[in-house]
């Protein structure tokens, strides 16, 4: 198990390294001169030269990369062109908001998704299976932003039950915060519930056909015990391994919900920065997101080793 962890750790480091390269290269694939893009056509030579020097673009590329990495370790992600503040500060301010929403959506959608998938798999072919499968199929096809707008229209504008936008920290006003958070989290969670449910269902169906399930039944165990003890534990293993991908997916959806519901998180920051050509923010966010997902994957792999004894005792 120890060697397994070490191997995965090394892999993760390599991947993070590659993520930094991707993130770094993004700034350098911009066609034409990024400096002019930012400053506009009418910038003076001196301004252009100065910004270029600030961005370090006058150095050879490997030195730029080295500098950039060094700066990262000092927490310096550069300065935003538009906001004129440290990128790191901007990101850090908004990070808790995004984390809160994503975490809520992750937890809720995983629990509901697994439950739905298990029921659907165990009761395969019945009405409830058809219903859940139908819902899951639609859920995967629904764009998060559209779902959000639907919610705003229905529950916000027409029924007036929930606020249509905005953010309050749960620490300041828990009830108001929750009211504001319900729809964005739901919009984010629904497609994920569908994905998790489908994966769980197919995993359950596959597990149920295994020989050891027949053995369990031959010992005289009740169907419920066979399904929820013997099958489920095995069926959940592949579902757990998808957690990293799920987090990536949720972050992507988070970008949309923050835009629709006007929530001051990293997603909204990213979109605004993208529309304003504020490259350094985009670059910084890419890096952070990539690192988060890599660590999530690492965590998942280690947990997976703990759940599946075959890996544990390798």
């Amino acid at each position, binding site marked *: 198990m120890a060697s397994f962890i070490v191997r995965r750790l090394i892999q993760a480091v*390599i991947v993070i390294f590659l993520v930094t390269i991707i993130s770094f290269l993004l700034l350098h694939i911009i066609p034409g001169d990024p400096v002019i893009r930012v400053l506009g056509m009418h910038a003076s030579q001196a301004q252009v030269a100065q910004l270029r020097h600030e961005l370090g673009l006058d150095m050879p590329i490997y030195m730029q990369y080295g500098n950039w990495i060094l700066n990262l370790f000092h927490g310096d992600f550069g300065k935003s062109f538009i906001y004129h503040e440290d990128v790191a500060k901007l990101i850090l301010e908004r990070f808790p908001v995004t984390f809160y929403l994503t975490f809520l959506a992750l937890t809720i959608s995983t629990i509901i998704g697994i439950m739905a998938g298990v029921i659907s798999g165990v009761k395969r072919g019945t009405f409830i299976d058809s219903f859940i499968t139908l819902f899951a199929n639609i859920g995967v096809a629904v764009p998060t932003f559209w779902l959000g707008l639907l919610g705003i229209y229905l529950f916000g504008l027409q029924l007036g039950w929930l606020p249509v936008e905005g953010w309050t920290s749960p620490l300041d006003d828990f009830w108001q915060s929750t009211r504001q958070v319900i729809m964005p989290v739901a919009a984010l969670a629904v497609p994920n519930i569908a994905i998790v449910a489908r994966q769980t269902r197919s995993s359950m169906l596959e597990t149920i056909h295994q020989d050891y399930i027949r053995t369990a039944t031959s010992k005289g165990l009740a169907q419920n015990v066979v399904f929820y003890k013997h099958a489920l534990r095995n069926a959940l293993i592949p579902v757990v391994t998808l957690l990293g991908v799920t987090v990536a997916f949720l972050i992507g959806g988070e970008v949309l919900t923050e835009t629709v519901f006007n929530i001051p998180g990293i997603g909204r920051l990213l979109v605004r920065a993208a529309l304003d050509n504020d490259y350094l923010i985009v670059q910084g966010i890419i890096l952070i997101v990539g690192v988060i997902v890599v660590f999530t994957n690492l965590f998942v792999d280690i947990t997976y080793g703990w759940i599946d004894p075959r890996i544990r005792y390798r």
Partner: protein
Amino acid sequence: MDETCVTPDLQGIPQPRVSESRRIFKVMFSRWVVIIGAVIILLLILTAIFAPLLTPYEPNKVKLEDSLQQPSSQHLLGTDLYGRDVLTRILYGSRIAIIVGVVAVTASGAFGMFLGLLAGYFGGWVETIIMRITDALMALPPLVLMLAIAVMLGGGVPTVLLALGVALMPTYSRLMCGQVLAAKENDYVMAAKVVGAGNIRVMFRHLVPNVFPPLLVLITLDLGFAILTEASLSFLGIGINPPTATWGAMVSDGQRYLLTHPVLSFTPGLAIVLVVLGFNLVGDGLRDALDPRLRGRI
């Protein structure tokens, strides 16, 4: 086998003989959900081809005097801010959807499979590097990655296609790499090598029928995913530029008038749901048909 090249839900699909493909189609379409999905896809294709015949209006022509009309017998779904008929724009939007979907998936599929082939065949360093790059790309949410690429390169169709291609590519490399590794370890490849046959040729003969089923499933599902993701990108205002009619942008444009003209945002969204659903149903049906264990009959 190295644990790098594993796509969990696709590796389990067994290899059918080519002669079985007819039977597989029969099984696939014996389920009415799959038929519905196929019909939807067909409708999409037909709409894209025959859009001009289906509507008298121009999708991009501005007619301010008709601005923001409610649905009527003249404009079945009303008009938008610029007086453009909503239904027409939805119909024409199917063209973008198909083009984006097909081109992006084809390109990323081809390139991804090629990389996967290299990785699997050469193994060692090559495999490690390619697979780690794949991991790095997969570490970024597709939307975020596409946002970044689209931002850096500016908007427009080619950028969106490139961004989509990059985001979709990793799954194909993984799939191909896994198949190549499995084929390499296959006993009969070793046997052929012993006899002296070129192992490239032997591997290919084994590879093609083996990779085809999961590849087909992946492509079908990715088509839906590509359309969905492009719509998200357009919704955010990044990507395909106006005035081209794309469903995502239409939803975004309609936001301001959500209370008075919900049709503007909801109908293009419905189109997205329908189309993606169609691809998903067919893709799922294909996957189930290829995996005998998931059916109620042997």
